[in-house]
């Protein structure tokens, strides 16, 4: 099977997966769910005619198979229906919420890698020293502590205690901009950054330890390989050995793990966005769920699944690009 055949196969599997997820999405909310989505937005005092008219507006009166076919075609054409709560298309709200989530998680992810990667490499090169022990301890600790607990401590300290001690909040406790928002664009950007700092920092603090530990362990593994001994024997500087040879060796698994960790970070951000009332898709998902606003929940869930699918695909494909052995394996 050639590369093209492999790609085709992956694409088909991905499409089938997406189809199954969309079906599952439909099933959970419109078949399994004992909850009546009309309960939250239809006044019980409505007459039958009024209720039916409203339900017809959302297409909820049609038989289940028609609804299913419509749902599948709509979802693949990026039409997620009308929110029960706001009565506007879900896509509109998604369009302004998605960038907020990307901003928060992008910052957090970049920060985590920027701190965790060098730390892990340094720890590996100073094996058994103080820095290494600290990384080890920090990494193990990061595996045990819930990120939302770190965020709560941040909130308690920077927003609430700071206010008592110094009379001002070091970081704001909620939202993405001050109310009222500054009109000047530069000030507006600064204001958003100020609000971004606490959720992003707390995500980085909760995440870099695990990363550093992971990279340290892989690096240590890589440093025992024969090609490193060869590189050292050639008289290359330790720096070159570490950052050009060993690092190149562990790059494929790093990229894979990075790609595979993105969905976890994104879905985990439901809690982050809830704590800091960040107007992203995670907090929207939660609000939609609690308010039985199912079009919103279905849309975000589908988006999450799509993201995971893409991340899985990218991880596999990038691995092939970065690791020639895998490419050869495919060609054969």
């Amino acid at each position: 099977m050639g590369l093209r055949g492999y790609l085709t196969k992956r694409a088909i599997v991905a499409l089938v997966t997406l189809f199954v997820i969309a079906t599952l999405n439909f099933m959970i909310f419109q078949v399994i769910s004992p909850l009546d989505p009309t309960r939250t937005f239809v006044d019980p005092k409505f007459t039958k005619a009024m209720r039916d008219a409203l339900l017809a507006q959302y297409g909820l009166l049609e038989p289940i198979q028609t609804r299913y076919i419509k749902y599948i075609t709509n979802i693949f054409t990026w039409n997620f229906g009308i929110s029960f709560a706001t009565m506007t298309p879900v896509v509109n709200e998604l369009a302004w919420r998605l960038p907020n989530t990307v901003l928060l998680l992008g910052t957090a992810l970049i920060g985590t890698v920027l701190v965790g990667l060098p730390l892990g490499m340094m720890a590996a090169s100073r094996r058994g020293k103080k820095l290494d022990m600290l990384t080890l301890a920090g990494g193990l600790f990061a595996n045990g502590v819930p990120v939302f607990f770190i965020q709560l401590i941040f909130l308690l300290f920077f927003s609430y205690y700071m206010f008592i001690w110094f009379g001002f909040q070091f970081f704001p406790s909620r939202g993405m901009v001050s109310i009222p928002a500054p009109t000047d664009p530069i000030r507006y950007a600064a204001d958003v950054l100020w609000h971004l700092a606490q959720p992003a920092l707390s995500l980085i603090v909760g995440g870099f330890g695990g990363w550093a530990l992971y990279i340290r362990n892989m690096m240590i593994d890589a440093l025992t390989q024969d090609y490193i001994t060869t590189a050292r024997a050639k008289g290359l500087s330790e720096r070159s050995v570490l950052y050009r040879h060993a690092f190149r060796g562990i790059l494929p698994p790093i990229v894979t793990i990075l790609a595979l960790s993105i969905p976890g970070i994104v879905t985990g951000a439901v809690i982050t966005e809830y704590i800091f009332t960040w107007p992203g898709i995670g907090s929207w998902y939660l609000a939609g769920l609690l308010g039985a606003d199912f079009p919103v929940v279905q849309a975000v869930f589908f988006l999450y699944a799509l993201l995971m699918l893409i991340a899985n695909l990218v991880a596999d494909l990038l691995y092939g690009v970065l690791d020639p052995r895998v490419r050869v394996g495919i060609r054969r």
Partner: protein
Amino acid sequence: MSPIITQEKRTIYRLKIEGFLEGFRRNRLGVLGIILLLVYIIAGLFAPWLSPYDPQQSQLLADAYAMPGWMKIFPQFSDYPNTINVTANWVVQQKTDSMAVEWGKTVNMVFNTTDTSETAEMIMNATFNYPYSVPPQRFVVTYDLLIGNITNTWYYAEMVIVNQAGNSTRIWILPFTDATTEVSPIRDSSDAWLVKELGYSDPKAVNVARSHVFTAPVKGTYTLAFHLYFRPDEGTPFASATATLGNAQVWIPGLVHGILGTDFLGTDVFSQLIHGAKISLAIGLLAAGLETSIGILIGVISGYTGGLVDEALMRIVDILLCLPVLPLLLTLVFVFGKNVFYIVILIGVFGWQGLARTIRSQVLVLRESSFVESAVASGAGKYYIMIRHIVPNIFPIAISSLVLSVPAAILTEAGLSFLGFGDPRTPTWGKMLNQAFGFGAFEKLAWWVAIPPGLAITFLSLAFVFMGYAIDEIVNPRLRRRR
């Protein structure tokens, strides 16, 4: 199979297990993990004896967000009040001759007169000591009062608190009546009705009764005074009535309480913390056990059977790997109901994919090994080989995976509970954090509500992380050589 080989095998397994235990004993992190876990197990098993209160039953032990008792060692908190609960012991101060009274904890009064032109009056006092210089946030006075057998008389009654400055605050009044009265008033200083009855229309004057009573000097003796007044109908030959006042209590919720203070309902935080250990351990172990069992089952079947079954199972794994787990769990818990049993099952059912993949790849290698080949050659059945030859060989991976998926399950459950999707009937640490976050502990700077449950989750997870790390080092020889 001949018994000799079984015996040999048994010896090999025994040696393996002994070697494993020996390695574990030498591993410092592993021992630390075991010790931590033991602490939690003891806390979980002996929760009813270790915790001073039952967190489900006993609320209002002190004021909301009362700080930990030991914080009194700091000078700024040294005079914060503990909870005071006194039963009034009445002493009659003044009474008319027409009244016959027995007093003490319960007061029985008989009023009987033939001179209906004279009024009759009684004042009783009960004193209580408030030994702190910091005023409380709230006080509650409760009592049972029965005034009956009324003939030809009108009466009124009132309850007053007199502070040391001599100012009296009326907390209850019964307007003139000639009907039988049987009441059990609960006079709470934070009660809006009381504020209104005191004559304040300002809605912000919520604690006005408290600030009226507890004026400087705060420390000292306060008096609860009951005043009963009879006015017989004039011209009637006689007038009589009886009155009983009992169970009079003054409850002043403290601002400090116990080892870790109280939460927003005045529940003991320390007791909740101890009781949370049991449920978190149970959830973590059960969910991880379920995950690992499904993972082993699917992995072994898929790897050993191969073909169409393998293909189908692996596509299911592919799909499951694309499901966003936390949002899915939130949704399903929301749909099926917030029940701890569902939560365990859902965490288990959606957590086995990774393990199944790993085990499958191991089984693919084992399938080709010579001992499986010889088993096949000697006529062993498929399931016999899977159970007797394959499963024991993937045990190390399974154990390490089991131990490492416990913290993951604990953290997942904590996350669900924190978002308010936990079982409302079980006291979990996630729920404590949810309530701390949702009911204003942060505004009150009540760190004792927010930090202990978080640390409890962290160290329980860490116990398993440490053990998992140690097991990994032992069963994974490559890792062991490096260290």
